[in-house]
């Protein structure tokens, strides 16, 4: 099929079928647009790169982009899930055939809510140190443990779970990957109250919960490998979101917000404040210039080391902006509540900066990644890499 034929087909289909759908407010849970998404799925537009047996059209990446662009132009959701749907991609790559038949169509139509059951109180930066256990029983597994930082757990039907299935091998080799049914006794979800007094995450307490055999993804004890696929999709989705957010950002005005605040505070003529304002704005502008340069270099086909630096840069920007906002306000920053919006902003942003500098891997882990993957420096020795997990010291 030529590009022009394909474009005509997808445009005609959209013209005949797309009538608008309710917006989605939550990125987890059941999708209010499920009916439309099922239509997109059945027409083969949801995952055009995928095999024909699995709702796809086996299109090349270039032709799949034509489909995505047509959907974007029409304002219609649902295309491009072969890149963006973390859950469906993980299931397609690793689930058993019988489970795939059930779950993949539901995932593509957003009919099931999903969440991630990876991190634990004792396994954050060191994710392979998980202690949630899955023990073999008739027809499946019994799971016991505690998970944390789980978005969307309240409204999830399944959780992508990593649990330890062999304690007598080194830590990476005794982990298995499951789709855990969330709506059962033995799965208790409690909202986690953050330092900002918001609740975007949950703790999940799992006590003897049951997961059937067919919900195991990949080989038994091969869960670390499955997780790497899932994490790669997650990173690519987050990267897309970040790029979208950046290109849609407020531009120069957002970059120079600190200047505005200093002027409002009547401190723009204070030479000490000017130094501070200049440096904080500079960090934001430099990060933007770095990102632009990285994109240009990638477009030219040369590799860029800059992308991995964006997180470090943004952490510094957010922490320093929070500090400077607070300093510009002075004693007003002692207050909170709706009558003091500037203080609320300064205080919230100062605390929420940790969302970036800790979340998704701490800045310290990110520095290791930059050192090792970008600069080629050797890893630290890992004393727990080769010994049975049962013997690894924890606490």
């Amino acid at each position: 099929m030529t590009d022009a034929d394909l474009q005509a087909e997808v445009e005609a289909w959209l013209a005949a079928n797309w009538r608008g759908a309710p917006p989605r407010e939550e990125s987890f849970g059941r999708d209010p647009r499920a009916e439309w998404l099922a239509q997109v799925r059945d027409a083969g537009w949801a995952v055009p790169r995928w095999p024909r047996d699995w709702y796809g059209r086996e299109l090349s990446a270039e032709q799949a982009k034509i489909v995505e662009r047509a959907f974007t132009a029409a304002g219609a959701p649902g295309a491009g899930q072969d890149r963006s749907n973390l859950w469906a991609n993980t299931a397609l790559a690793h689930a058993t055939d019988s489970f795939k038949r059930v779950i993949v169509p539901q995932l593509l139509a957003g009919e099931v809510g999903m969440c991630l059951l990876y991190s634990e109180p004792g396994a954050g930066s060191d994710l392979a140190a998980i202690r949630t256990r899955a023990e073999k029983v008739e027809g499946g597994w019994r799971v016991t443990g505690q998970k944390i930082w789980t978005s969307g757990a309240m409204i999830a039907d399944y959780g992508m779970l990593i649990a330890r299935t062999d304690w007598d091998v080194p830590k990476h080799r005794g982990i298995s990957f499951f789709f855990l049914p969330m709506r059962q006794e033995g799965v208790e979800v409690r909202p986690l109250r953050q330092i900002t007094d918001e609740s975007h995450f949950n703790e999940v307490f799992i006590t003897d919960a049951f997961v059937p055999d067919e919900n195991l993804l990949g080989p038994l004890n091969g869960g670390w490998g499955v997780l790497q696929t899932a994490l790669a999709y997650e990173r690519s989705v987050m990267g897309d979101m970040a790029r979208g957010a950046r290109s849609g950002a407020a531009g120069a005005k957002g970059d120079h917000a600190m200047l505005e605040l200093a002027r409002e505070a009547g401190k723009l003529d204070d030479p000490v404040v000017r130094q501070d304002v200049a440096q904080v704005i500079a960090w934001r502008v430099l990060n933007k210039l770095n990102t632009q340069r990285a994109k240009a270099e990638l477009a030219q086909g040369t590799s860029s080391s800059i992308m991995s630096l964006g997180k470090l840069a943004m952490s510094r920007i957010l922490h320093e902006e929070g500090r400077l906002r607070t300093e510009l306000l002075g004693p007003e920053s002692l207050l909170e509540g709706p009558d003091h919006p500037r203080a609320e902003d300064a205080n919230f942003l100062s605390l929420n900066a940790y969302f970036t500098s800790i979340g998704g891997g701490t800045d310290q882990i990110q520095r290791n990644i930059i050192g090792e993957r970008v600069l080629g420096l050797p890893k630290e020795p890992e004393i727990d890499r080769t010994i049975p997990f049962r013997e690894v010291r924890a606490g």
Partner: protein
Amino acid sequence: MTDATMNQEERTALRDTVRRLFADQCTESDVRRIMESDSGHDPALWRSLAELGIAGLLVAADAGGSQLSAVELELVMEEAGAALAPVPLISTAMASVLLDGELAEALAAGRTIAAVALLGALDWTGDSNVRIEGGRAQGTARFVPDAGIADIFLLASDEGVHLVERASAGITPLPTFDRTRRMADVRFDGAATRIGDGAAARRARDIGLVALAGEQTGGARRIFDITVDYARERHQFGRAIGSFQAIKHMAADLLLEAESATSAARDAARQVAEGAVGKDAAVALAAFACADAFLRCAKDGIQMHGGIAFTWDHPAHLYLRRARSGVQLFGDSNIWRDRYVAALDAMQKEMAA
């Protein structure tokens, strides 16, 4: 002065050519030899650069120049900075903006070297006192780069640009801490010919800042690379020191500084070449971001090396000296941070109006 720019392929070729030339004729031992010389200038290297069209990079084609823009200047300066090239590239780039005709031709050919003294509101030393009245220049310009080897002097201020012959200048070479960047105090007492206005003087200053930012970017990247290479090779406690997070994390932070300097220098070059509305802010940003990044890479680079980089024979201190001289040249980072705020403020007010 023109705005002709190269395409990406030509730029890569230019970079490769310049890099090869420095690898060949500006090795560390060459730099050390020139450091010990009276002039601190490498005439042979300068001849080679003139033959390649680098001395006349910004000079118009009809005066025998390469007629290129600030973008290519910045690129060349990255290589020159990496090699610590002891040649008057910055002064020549600034003079290219101010000269035309035979003088521009002589500049491009490498026959004439021009030193530029920034005066009045552009004086970064805070200590120059040259007055130009009735076609005569009188007084002293302080810390004039390349003055010791200059054939002519260009006095640039908001009041205009004046040319003074060497015969009318009394030169006192200064014992500069960075022996690869020589400066002199110059006492003028003689005829001064007006050759340009205040706007030209500001353009020359901006070109100088772009060139310096490029040099700092190249220097930062080179001392960073030297440091990371060493962290991979050097073993203590049975491990490469780069495997220790104490070293690895410093390296990650320096990479961010070096990459940010690169972005800032190239953005300033592009905006100056295009005469963009944001160029004053972009130049100010590059002025402090590149200076600070180079200084930090050079300083932390020595710390990460340990004792070996405390020795004279190790090149790290050459980069630290160069970084320290660049921080002062054309105004320090505090001044440029202040001017950055002023430029952003002016831009916001203009947009609001």
